[in-house]
C-alpha cells in the first residue's frame, strides 16, 4: 500500500506522492514498500508492529537469561554461571523483561489499537511516535552492547545505592544500564504525551470518555503514570550518572550521603511502574472477556474508575518496597495502610471480570483461556502481595524467594498472560490471519503449568529462608523432608523450562500461521463477533484506518451496529447486520481526500543521536558534542518540515475538493 494516498470516490487506486516540493532539508521519503517504508514510517500501525516485534525478541532474550538462572539453581553448588555472571544475568533478566518487553509490548498494543479504538486515522503526533519507537530500539540495543563491552550491569534492576557505585561495580555495566534506561525513558515520555493528546483530542465524533473502549481507558491511565513517573527516574539516573562518571557523592555514605535517597527516587518511579506494567493487560482482558462471554463488560464505569483509582493510589505506596530499610514506625504504618487500600480497586476489577463471565455463553478460545488465566494467577499473586503490605510479615519475607514468587505471579501470571490474550485476540486484526487454536491451547496450558511449577515452589523456598540473588545454594543448608530446598528448586527449574517450551510453541504458531505448508487462510472479517470500533475496519486495517470517520453513539459501537434491541422488554439483541454489511456501508460513504501525515527521515536520525551521546558519557566526551550537533540539526530539519506534505507533494495535486485534514502536527 502507498504511504501517502488520497482515495477518492469512484477512483480507489491510491495516488502516490512525488518527492518534489518540500520544505525540509531533504525531499520527503515516499517509499511505500520495502524496508525503507518501515524505517521512515509514521503510520501508527507499522510502528505498533515494530514495537511488538522488538519486544517479543527481547522477551526471548530475557527468557534465555531466566533459563540460565534456573539452570544454575537447579542443583546445589551450580557451576553454569560464575557469581559475577549470575549478578549480571538476574539484573539484565529483570531489566529486559520490564523495560524491553512488557513496557514496549504495552506500547505496541496502545499504538496499534488506540487510534483504531477511538476512530482516528493516526496519533496526534505521528513523527514523535516514530521517534519514540526508535529511541526505544536504540536504547535497548545500547544497554545490551554492554555484554560485549566489559560486562552488563550487576546491581539488580533497582540498582540500590551505594552498591551501584564504582568501587562495588567497576565495569561500565551500570553506566550502560543507566544511560540506556534514560534513552528508553525518552521513548516512554514522548510516547505517553503523544497518546494522551491522541485520546483527549482525536476521538471520533460522539465518542465521549464514557463510551471509550476499556483498553483505551486503561492505556490512557498508564500514559499518565508514565508522564509523571519517568521524570522521577530521570532525576535518579542523572544523580547516578554524576556519581559514577563525574565523581559526585550523592550516594556515598562516607561523604555523609543518604543512600535511601536513591531508594525513594527509584520507588517513587518504581511503584507507578508496577501499574504501568499491569494495567495494559487489565485493559486487554477487559476487552477479551466480554467478547467471549457474549455479554457487555459488567460495571464498565466501575472498571474505568477503579483503573484510575489504582493509578492514583499507586503514587502513595512506594515506601512499602522499603519496609526493611528503617523508615521509622510512622512511615511504615502509613505506607502499610495505603498499600492495603490499593487492594480494593484491584478487587473491584476481579469481581467485575467474574461477573462479566457469570451467566454468559462462554467461548473458551485461546484468548479467553489466557484472560481467565490472568484472573486466577493474578489473584494468587495479589494475595501474597497483601501479605507484604503487613509490615511485620514483610520484614520476614524481604529479600527471600517469597518476594520473587509474588512478583512473578503478578507480572507473569498477570501482565504476560494478558499480553498473550491480546496477541491471540488481535492477531487476525493486525496480520489478517488467525493463529492456530490447537497450538494456542498447547501454548496456554504449557505456560500456565510451567509458571505454577516455576513460581509456586518459590513461596516455599522463600519462607524457608532462601535469599534472592544468591548464585548458589548448598545441600548442607537445604533442609529435609517436604521443605527440602533442593527438591523445590529442581521443580522450579523444570517448571521454567516447561514455561520456556510453551513460549516457543507460540513462536512456532506464528511461523506456521504465516509461512510453511499449513499457512492459515485469510481471517474472516469479524472472527470473534467483537464489540469495539477497531473491528470496524478491514483485516489488516487500511492505511487510512476508516473509510469514513465513524460517528459513535454507543459504548461497544460495533456491536450496536450489528445488533439491535428489538424487544420492548429488553429481552435480547437481535442481529440486524453482519460485519461485512456494516463495513460496506462505511465503504460506500467513504470520505474523499484524506490527508495522511507524511513519512519523515528526522525521527530516526534524532533518535540515533542519543546512543551516540550516551557512548560519549562512557568513553569520550567528544562524542557527546557529535551527538549534540546531530540532535540540533535533526530538530531544525524536523521543525522546518510540515507534518503533512503540502499539496504540491501529491500527485495528482488537490483539485480544491472537500479537504478533510488530519489534526496532526507532530
Amino acid at each position: 500500500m502507498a504511504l501517502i494516498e488520497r482515495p477518492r470516490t469512484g477512483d480507489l487506486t491510491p495516488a502516490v506522492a512525488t518527492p518534489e516540493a518540500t520544505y525540509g532539508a531533504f525531499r520527503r521519503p515516499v517509499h511505500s514498500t520495502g524496508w525503507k517504508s518501515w524505517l521512515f514510517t509514521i503510520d501508527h500501525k507499522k510502528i505498533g508492529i515494530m514495537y511488538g516485534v522488538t519486544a517479543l525478541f527481547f522477551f526471548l532474550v530475557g527468557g534465555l537469561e531466566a533459563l540460565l538462572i534456573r539452570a544454575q539453581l537447579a542443583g546445589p553448588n551450580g557451576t553454569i554461571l560464575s557469581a559475577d555472571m549470575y549478578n549480571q544475568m538476574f539484573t539484565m533478566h529483570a531489566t529486559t523483561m520490564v523495560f524491553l518487553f512488557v513496557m514496549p509490548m504495552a506500547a505496541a498494543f496502545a499504538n496499534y489499537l488506540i487510534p483504531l479504538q477511538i476512530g482516528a486515522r493516526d496519533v496526534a503526533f505521528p513523527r514523535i511516535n516514530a521517534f519514540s519507537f526508535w529511541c526505544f530500539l536504540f536504547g535497548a540495543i545500547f544497554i545490551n552492547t554492554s555484554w560485549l563491552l566489559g560486562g552488563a550491569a550487576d546491581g539488580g534492576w533497582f540498582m540500590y545505592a551505594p552498591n551501584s557505585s564504582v568501587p562495588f561495580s567497576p565495569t561500565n555495566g551500570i553506566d550502560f544500564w543507566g544511560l540506556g534506561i534514560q534513552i528508553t525513558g525518552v521513548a516512554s515520555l514522548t510516547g505517553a504525551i503523544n497518546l494522551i493528546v491522541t485520546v483527549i483530542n482525536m476521538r471520533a465524533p460522539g465518542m465521549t470518555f464514557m463510551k471509550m473502549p476499556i483498553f483505551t481507558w486503561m492505556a490512557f491511565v498508564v500514559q499518565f503514570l508514565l508522564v509523571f513517573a519517568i521524570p522521577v527516574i530521570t532525576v535518579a539516573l542523572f544523580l547516578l550518572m554524576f556519581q559514577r562518571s563525574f565523581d559526585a557523592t550523592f550516594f556515598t555514605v562516607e561523604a555523609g550521603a543518604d543512600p535511601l535517597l536513591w531508594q525513594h527516587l527509584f520507588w517513587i518511579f518504581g511503584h507507578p511502574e508496577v501499574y504501568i506494567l499491569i494495567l495494559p493487560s487489565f485493559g486487554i482482558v477487559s476487552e477479551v472477556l466480554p467478547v467471549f462471554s457474549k455479554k457487555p463488560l459488567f460495571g464498565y464505569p466501575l472498571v474505568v474508575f477503579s483503573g484510575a483509582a489504582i493509578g492514583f493510589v499507586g503514587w502513595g505506596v512506594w515506601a512499602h518496597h522499603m519496609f526493611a530499610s528503617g523508615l521509622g514506625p510512622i512511615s511504615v504504618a502509613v505506607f502499610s495502610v495505603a498499600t492495603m487500600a490499593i487492594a480494593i480497586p484491584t478487587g473491584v476489577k476481579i469481581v467485575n471480570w467474574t461477573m462479566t463471565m457469570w451467566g454468559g455463553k462462554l467461548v473458551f478460545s485461546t484468548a479467553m483461556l489466557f484472560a481467565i488465566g490472568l484472573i486466577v494467577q493474578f489473584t494468587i499473586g495479589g494475595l501474597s502481595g497483601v501479605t507484604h503490605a503487613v509490615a511485620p510479615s514483610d520484614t520476614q519475607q524481604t529479600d527471600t524467594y517469597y518476594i520473587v514468587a509474588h512478583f512473578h505471579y503478578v507480572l507473569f501470571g498477570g501482565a504476560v498472560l494478558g499480553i498473550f490474550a491480546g496477541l491471540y485476540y488481535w492477531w487476525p486484526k493486525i496480520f489478517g490471519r488467525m493463529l492456530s487454536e490447537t497450538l494456542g491451547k498447547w501454548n496456554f496450558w504449557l505456560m500456565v503449568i510451567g509458571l505454577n511449577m516455576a513460581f509456586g515452589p518459590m513461596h516455599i523456598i522463600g519462607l524457608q529462608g532462601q535469599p534472592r540473588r544468591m548464585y548458589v545454594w548448598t545441600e548442607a543448608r537445604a533442609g529435609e523432608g517436604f521443605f527440602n530446598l533442593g527438591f523445590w528448586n529442581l521443580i522450579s527449574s523444570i517448571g521454567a523450562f516447561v514455561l520456556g517450551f510453551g513460549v516457543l510453541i507460540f513462536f512456532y504458531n506464528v511461523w506456521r500461521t504465516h509461512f510453511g505448508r499449513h499457512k492459515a487462510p485469510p481471517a474472516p472479517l469479524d472472527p470473534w463477533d467483537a464489540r469495539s470500533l477497531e473491528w470496524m475496519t478491514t483485516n489488516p486495517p487500511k492505511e487510512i484506518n476508516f473509510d469514513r470517520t465513524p460517528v459513535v453513539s454507543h459504548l461497544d459501537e460495533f456491536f450496536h451496529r450489528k445488533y439491535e434491541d428489538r424487544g420492548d422488554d429488553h429481552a435480547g439483541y437481535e442481529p440486524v447486520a453482519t460485519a461485512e454489511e456494516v463495513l460496506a456501508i462505511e465503504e460506500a460513504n467513504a470520505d474523499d481526500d484524506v490527508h495522511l501525515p507524511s513519512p519523515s527521515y528526522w525521527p530516526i536520525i534524532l533518535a540515533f543521536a542519543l546512543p551516540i551521546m550516551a557512548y560519549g558519557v562512557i568513553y569520550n566526551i567528544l562524542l557527546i558534542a557529535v551527538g549534540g550537533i546531530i540532535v540540533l540539526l535533526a530538530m531544525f530539519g524536523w521543525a522546518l518540515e510540515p507534518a503533512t506534505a503540502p499539496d504540491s507533494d501529491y500527485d495528482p495535486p488537490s483539485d480544491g475538493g472537500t479537504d478533510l485534514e488530519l489534526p496532526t502536527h507532530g
Partner: protein
Amino acid sequence: MADTAVHAAAGHDDHHADHGGHYTSTGLSNNKLAMWLFLGSECLLFGGLISTYMLYRGRHTANLGPDQVWDIPFTSASSFVLLMSSLTMVLAVTAAKRRDDRTTNVWLSVTALLGSLFVAGQVYEFTVFYREGLGYTTSLFSSSFYTLTGFHGVHVTVGVIMLLAVVGMIIRNRIPGDKAEVVELVGLYWHFVDIVWILIFTLVYLIPA
C-alpha cells in the same frame, strides 16, 4: 448521515482557513495540550532535584555552606532579569496574536537577550563559587546545588536557542502552521523556566539553610 458529515466537514474547512486550526474532540490545539502536559511532567523532574538539594543543603564543609557563599544582591539582580524576560515574552505573544511580526521579533529577541544575560550571570556566579573553593564534588551541598541550578541553566539555554530559532524562522517565513501558536508554545516553556527559578530563588537562596 453521510451528507451531514460532509456538510459539516466542508463547514469546518472554511473555519480552518480562518483560524489555521483543525478539528479536534475538544477544539483545543494538540500542540498546546502536549506542551502543558510536558510542563506537568517537568514539575516532577525539578521537584526531584529541589528535594535532593533540600536534603543535602546542610551537608558541607565548615566554611563553604549556602549561607557563606551566597551573594544575594547579585542573585536578586539576575532573578529580576529573568522575571522581566517573562514580561517581554508575554509582549511577544500578544504581538504575535496581532500578527505583528516586527514587534514579535523585537520582543522575542529582547527575551533571548535577557535569558542570555541570566545564563551569563549564572556562569559568573559559578566561577566565583569555584574560585572560593566550591567545586562540583566538594560536598553534597555543592553537588546538589550545581546539579539543580545547572539543570535550570540548561533549560534556559535551550529556551534561548528556541527563541532565536523562532526569530530566524519568522524572518525567513519558514514556520509551518500557526505562527502565533508557535510563539505561544515557546512562551509557555519560557514562563515555566521562570517559575522554576521563582521557586529556586526563594527556597534555595533566600531561606537560610
